[in-house]
């Protein structure tokens, strides 16, 4: 045997094969991988004790449990948000928005961690101390106040009736400015409809108790009220794969809700209310209505003119409604009969797919259908939520300085309804009767989320001094001269009220579970700090040491705050069943709304009432104008002639309103929402697309008078002809959120809002658009 080249090669090959036959290589590879995980600069959670804390996400109404590691050297860390099985309505479920809340909390680049002031020279925001920031903001407020210009300060809040909303309202009232607006929602419309017909602003739908539900154009399973609670109610109708409850969906798109419903009534756009009135007429002509409803004001003909019964017979026979809505006559009759037959049946109105507040007359039509069913106060019907007994933060303040509101709310121009960002922005941009010198955006992100976001953005850009109180360096904050950091719901005090349509009295409370960033305060604390710095009347109106102290005052009727905060919610055991005592002027249910009538009379004198109602956008005449009736949406008239109607496609996988889109949400979106990672997908009926010479995956531009968005066409036979359906929640452009910036287009940017007849609220469910090949 010679030790030559050949021998060596054989030995070496043997060695290599032998080495590979041993576990050395896989073992070392595994260890090397673990070694890289243990490099000292790789963050690893430290050991600590596990703890859980309850809280409620005010954006979704979900009761959640937050898992945290405590006792770490680097401080506590929240590690997971999961459902709270003990929460009476959400029962342990969560939404993507809840589950990914920590992505917002710990998103360093996107969070505002210290007060920031915009430096004109560098074009950048610079970190300053709280003292300095408050001094600058309070200084500007004091300057305007002293110059008698306090009314030129506008504030844009999120929700009026929460703690933060009340603090902001008191702040503005004490400062002497009437120009305060909030996000509008279906809750505002339902409150108005309830007030008009039942004298009750606190109505809810007992979905969990119902076994037959007709949803009129609402995204019932895709973002209605507290979506988890609604989903749980729906799960109750589908127990053990048996349909114990029936869901009928009325809308022009075969949406997620429609696809999960037992019956889909694919109506023409904007005609849901006509379908509701058609069902009312079938109930009456078939003698299937609740005889108690006959005693309601305006049901029969009277001195004022024809009653609701006559109105229905005249204008909403199944044949006429079929003409209007495209729903076959026999379907209308079948659904009405089934609705009448089921003991626990309810008709539901609600937000539009893009979170629109809905149309007042549509809501009144749905309440009328419930009234004819006779389900008010009954299990599975329309219920009145009991008041929570929250205490006011102090005596009402009334020295707005006599200046009129910019948006005309409360005047003959807009007698009812609530203040909204768009109306404020439009009025402020016109500069009539005065200009806005300073704006304070508290908690929200109207530059992205307000209807016709472009107009609101133009307004905020035009304001000489803009202050944003926000957790995020979002689309609004980047325009602000001063940005004040406030916490997410996981790190601050605050509360939330019963979600839209909820059947039981509900109150959610969130408290700081963690101090993730040293300088971040609760939004309430920021307002209080500003008030204290400003002194005078404003400080007197807000004499609280902290947001926690203000909450203590507010929740005095609900027991000890510390205990309530630990539990995080107060929810009534069951809906308040029993006969409803209507608080209308007549003390009865009113098909002819005396509340609306009295208001119109007050504005005009009996003779000119028709004129007043016309100016408020009501085209019906006589008694019909103040009864539930169908008014075709303004957008319908503008459609046709090559123009399509744009409507929103809601999803639980994208956030609602002001909430940021999280990276997690992007991961769970499907190819029918975002294509090629960042291109928005719009759905169209194949015939409509063919008439525009468009094919699947064509790139298009969807343009309205408000704005435009690029998109990819997806053909879908379940979309009503003549329409284009666009997902909501995308199209973010805040640079600080690198994950979501530039993904898709913003529905709010394209949608065009019109004033709803009577309520004057902006509605943007349908927008005439041109769809052209890009």
């Amino acid at each position, binding site marked *: 045997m010679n030790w030559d080249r*050949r*021998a060596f090669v054989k030995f070496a090959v043997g060695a290599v*094969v032998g*080495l590979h036959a041993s576990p050395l290589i896989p*073992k*070392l590879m595994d260890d090397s991988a*673990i070694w890289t995980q*243990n490099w000292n600069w790789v963050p690893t959670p430290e050991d600590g004790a596990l703890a859980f804390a309850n809280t409620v996400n005010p954006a979704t109404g979900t009761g959640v449990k937050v898992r945290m*590691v405590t006792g770490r050297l680097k401080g506590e860390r929240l590690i997971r948000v999961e459902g709270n099985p003990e929460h009476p309505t959400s029962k342990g479920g969560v939404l993507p928005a809840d589950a990914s809340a920590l992505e917002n909390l710990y998103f360093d680049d996107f969070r505002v961690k210290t007060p920031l002031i915009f430096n004109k020279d560098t074009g950048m925001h610079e970190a300053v101390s709280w003292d300095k920031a408050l001094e600058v903001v309070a200084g500007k407020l004091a300057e305007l106040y002293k110059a008698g210009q306090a009314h030129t300060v506008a504030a844009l809040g999120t929700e009026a009736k929460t703690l933060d909303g009340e603090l902001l309202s008191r702040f503005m009232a004490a400062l002497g400015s009437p120009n305060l607006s909030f996000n509008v929602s279906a809750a505002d419309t339902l409150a108005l409809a309830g007030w008009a017909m039942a004298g009750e602003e606190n109505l809810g739908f007992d979905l969990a108790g119902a076994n037959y539900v007709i949803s009129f154009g609402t995204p019932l399973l895709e973002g209605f009220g507290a979506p988890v609670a609604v989903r749980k109610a729906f799960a109750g109708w589908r127990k053990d794969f048996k349909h114990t409850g029936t869901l009928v969906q009325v809308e022009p798109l075969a949406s997620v809700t429609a696809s999960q419903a037992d019956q889909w009534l694919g109506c023409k756009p904007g005609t849901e209310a006509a379908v509701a009135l058609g069902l009312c007429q079938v109930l009456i002509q078939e003698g299937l209505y609740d005889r108690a409803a006959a005693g309601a004001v305006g049901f029969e003909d009277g001195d004022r003119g024809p009653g609701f019964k006559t109105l229905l017979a005249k204008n909403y026979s199944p044949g006429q409604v079929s003409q209007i809505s495209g729903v076959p006559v026999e379907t209308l009759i079948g659904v009405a009969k089934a609705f009448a037959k089921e003991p626990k049946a309810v008709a539901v109105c609600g937000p539009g797919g893009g979170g629109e507040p809905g149309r007042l007359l549509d809501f009144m039509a749905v309440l009328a259908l419930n009234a004819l069913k006779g389900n008010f106060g009954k299990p599975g019907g329309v219920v009145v939520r009991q008041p929570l007994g929250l205490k006011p933060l102090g005596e009402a303040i009334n020295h707005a300085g006599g200046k009129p509101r910019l948006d005309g709310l409360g005047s003959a121009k807009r007698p009812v309804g609530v203040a909204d960002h768009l109306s404020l922005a439009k009025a402020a941009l016109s500069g009539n009767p005065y200009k806005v010198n300073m704006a304070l955006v508290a908690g929200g992100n109207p530059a992205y989320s307000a209807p016709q976001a472009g107009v609101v953005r133009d307004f905020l850009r035009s304001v000489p001094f803009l202050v944003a109180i926000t957790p995020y360096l979002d689309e609004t904050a980047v325009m602000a001269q001063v940005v004040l950091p406030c916490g997410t719901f996981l790190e601050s005090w605050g509360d939330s009220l019963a979600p839209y349509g909820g059947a039981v009295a509900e109150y959610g409370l969130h408290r700081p579970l963690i101090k993730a960033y040293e300088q971040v305060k609760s939004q309430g604390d920021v307002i209080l700090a500003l008030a204290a710095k400003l002194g005078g009347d404003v400080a007197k109106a807000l004499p609280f040491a902290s947001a926690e102290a203000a909450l203590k005052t507010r929740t005095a009727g609900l027991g000890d705050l510390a205990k309530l905060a630990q539990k995080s919610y107060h929810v009534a055991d069951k809906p308040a069943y029993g006969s409803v005592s209507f608080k209308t002027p007549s003390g009865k249910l009113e098909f002819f709304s005396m509340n609306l009538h009295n208001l119109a009379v007050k504005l005009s004198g009996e003779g000119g009432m028709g004129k007043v109602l016309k100016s408020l956008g009501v085209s019906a005449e006589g008694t019909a104008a103040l009864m539930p009736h169908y008014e075709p949406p303004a957008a319908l008239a503008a459609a046709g002639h090559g123009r399509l109607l744009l409507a929103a496609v809601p999803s639980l996988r994208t956030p609602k309103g002001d909430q940021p889109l999280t990276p997690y949400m992007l991961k769970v979106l499907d190819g029918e929402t975002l294509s090629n990672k960042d291109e928005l997908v719009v759905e169209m009926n194949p015939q409509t697309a063919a008439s525009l010479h468009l094919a699947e995956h064509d790139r298009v531009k969807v343009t309205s008078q408000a704005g435009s968005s690029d998109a990819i066409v997806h053909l879908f036979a379940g979309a009503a002809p003549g329409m284009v359906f666009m997902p909501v929640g995308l199209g973010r452009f805040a640079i600080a959120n690198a994950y979501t910036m530039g993904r898709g287009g913003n529905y709010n940017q394209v949608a065009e809002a019109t004033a709803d007849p009577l309520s004057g609220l902006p509605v943007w469910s349908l927008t005439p658009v041109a769809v052209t090949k890009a």
Partner: protein
Amino acid sequence: MTTHEQGQAKRSHADWLLFVVGFVLFSALGFWGTPALLYAEKPQPFQFSHKVHMEQVSEGCKSCHSFREDGSFTGIPSMDKCKECHSDSPQGDTPEEKIFVEQYLNKNKPVDWRVYAKQPPCVFFSHAAHTENAGLDCAKCHGDHGKSESLRPYQYNRLTGYSRDIWGWNILGLGGPPKRMKMDSCADCHRENGVRDACFVCHK
């Protein structure tokens, strides 16, 4: 067959022997050399007999390794737990107990035991979920540790810093607990028993 050809055939057989030698030597290096090089030992502070202690207590492992009121696991017993039985003078006559009493108990200094089964910091492990809810025996994962008369050497991986018990004492990574506690062992058991094995069930 020419002389040259005969030489070639002889050569080939001899050379193949070299292949076998190379194979055996280097696979042996992989099998026996790797653990010897990769794992280092640290001594335990002093010896300890689980067997002796088990004979004295009534509730088995749980007598010392107990759950707190909130359900979390105490792991290594605290000095207070030891003091429930031990006083400031040794009860027996072993040198180990003398060390314990003099150097730790009397000074109220916790013993820095090397923990064989310590999991990496990126995961949660709930003992309550496994022993109380699922009813697993401690021995299912820890083997006969509770019957041992002395503490075996604590070996750790020089590269990863983890206890050798995690990869398992078999260098091939075969077997499951008590011989091995890698992620796949956890996942296998979860799957076999129909328990969720999603990432966040264990990972922080």
